[in-house]
């Protein structure tokens, strides 16, 4: 086949120059992300010589610029945290804000140290983390499965949609006492509460996303002799990966909220339990310490997911 030779050669060159280097970046900064790239692996086996081309000057400049950008973002992020903590500490010690209500970083650190000496903080954090992860996993599985079911049956979707909207807007914290009576005073209640906070909105979001699949892509599968199952596996799910991931990001937060609500009401361990316990003995420092742990629990999850989402979006 003879197309213009220069065109092919040209695209090929940039292709050679860019791919391996892009991968080097992502491998350097977060190893687990580059693990999630399935396809390019095969290539390295087929054409190993493609991996060591000399980089052009512009490409090197571009990479350098990208690297600088990433470093800057990281530095500013950390500096912002330091600045906020410093301001907080200063305001508290100079009495600009009431240290009794708002506490201060140093008091929180002291409290954290005290609690970590007897190990109680780790137990409670661990319990909350476990509950959050379990309910998060359940939400992802249930929501994805339900959204697919709705996509498969249009009638079912139309029948159930108002109910889902209603369930989603129901205040779950109001329902929690009911759950305790029903399921007892245990971890099951907490997980059900957390799942109920996140799952309905998640189903609605995913279903709306699924419905926006390009009808022509579905026609393509049909013209190749595929069934609805093929459409589901080969178009719907892969094309919805970014959506599913961004939805997961929201869900981590919601699940944590749900778990804390559940623990407020029916727990013998966990951060929510600690907060309630502390508020009964009115120790703001305690409450704040726990609140911060709650915050930090959320952060790494979020960060992980952002990285993954970033990687997947660049893939798709």
């Amino acid at each position, binding site marked *: *086949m003879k197309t213009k030779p220069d065109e092919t050669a040209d695209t090929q060159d940039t292709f050679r120059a860019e791919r391996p280097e892009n991968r080097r970046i992502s491998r350097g900064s977060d190893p687990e992300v580059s693990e999630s790239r399935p396809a390019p692996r095969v290539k390295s086996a*087929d054409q190993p010589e493609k991996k060591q081309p000399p980089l052009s000057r512009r490409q090197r400049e571009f990479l350098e610029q990208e690297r600088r950008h990433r470093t800057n973002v990281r530095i500013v992020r950390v500096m912002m945290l330091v600045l906020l903590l410093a301001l907080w500490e200063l305001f508290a010690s100079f009495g600009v804000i009431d240290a009794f209500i708002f506490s201060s970083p140093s008091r929180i650190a002291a409290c954290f140290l005290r609690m970590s000496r007897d190990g109680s903080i780790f137990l409670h954090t661990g319990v909350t983390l476990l509950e959050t992860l379990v309910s998060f996993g359940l939400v992802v599985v249930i929501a994805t499965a339900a959204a697919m079911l709705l996509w498969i049956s249009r009638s079912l979707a139309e029948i159930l949609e108002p109910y889902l909207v209603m369930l989603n807007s129901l205040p779950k914290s109001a329902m929690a006492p009911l759950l305790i009576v029903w399921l007892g005073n245990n971890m099951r209640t907490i997980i059900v509460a957390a799942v109920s906070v996140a799952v309905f909105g998640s189903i609605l979001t995913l279903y709306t996303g699924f419905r926006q699949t390009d009808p022509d892509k579905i026609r393509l599968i049909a013209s190749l002799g595929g069934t609805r199952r093929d459409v589901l596996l080969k178009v719907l799910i892969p094309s919805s990966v970014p959506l599913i991931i961004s939805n997961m990001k929201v869900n981590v937060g919601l699940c944590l909220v749900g778990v804390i609500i559940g623990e407020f009401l029916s727990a013998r361990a966990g951060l929510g339990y600690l907060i309630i316990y502390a508020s009964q003995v009115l120790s703001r420092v305690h409450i704040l310490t726990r609140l911060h742990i709650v915050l930090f629990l959320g952060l790494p999850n979020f960060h992980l997911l952002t990285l993954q989402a970033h990687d997947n979006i660049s893939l798709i």
Partner: protein
Amino acid sequence: MKEKLQVKDLSYAYHELSGETPALSHISFDVEDGEFLAVVGPSGCGKSTLLSLLCGLLEPEEGAVLIDGIPREKSRAVIGYMLQRDHLFEWRTILSNVSLGLEIQKRLDSAAKEELRQMLTAYGLGAFQQARPSQLSGGMRQRAALIRTLALKPDILLLDEPFSALDYQTRLSVCDDISSILRARKKTAVLITHDLSEAISVADRILVLSGRPGRVKSVLKIEFAPEYDRPLARRNALEFSAYFNQLWKELRTDEDKT
């Protein structure tokens, strides 16, 4: 010659709550075995709908489609359909994109994969097997889409403006290549196009459709001396401009009426 594809009195309308859109009305034509038929007509006259009906994505409201004399739904003939846009999936590599059809039909073994590799190489995509579609130029994507269609070894090929996304130069050469490939393999093909000279340069016959709802306006037989067998060569033949004027007139009379 034997009729490969027979279309008998085909009608189709799209139904929506807001109303009905008649797309095709009483279409009849035949395509012989190994023949290359081009379909031209104004935009929106139902050309894409016609191909969807031919390959069974839509069920005709009236009329029938016969393949080798048997109703389409009973026939075991394989029909390849190349859609108006390439629809390569960005989450797959080029190689796994072109193997999509075989994968769906569970016919993808290592021999088939090897054959696909060879096809990719033959069509100038050998170095891009593991690339993502966004790394390819428009013409390369079209070729990948064609390989995806040909991989199923179709008896009949339906092409919906396969070259419309290409720049003129690439378009001429890709069109020349593809039609030579199809002729060499003696495929029966139906090609939709907006480009009259493209239709004349590749087709054995041209079906002219009227504006919506599409009706068969006329059928033009295209004959060139054997030395003008390739599309690019046909463009140099004397008869070319005569055919062009004739086709232009057929389409124009349609416009004047509406």
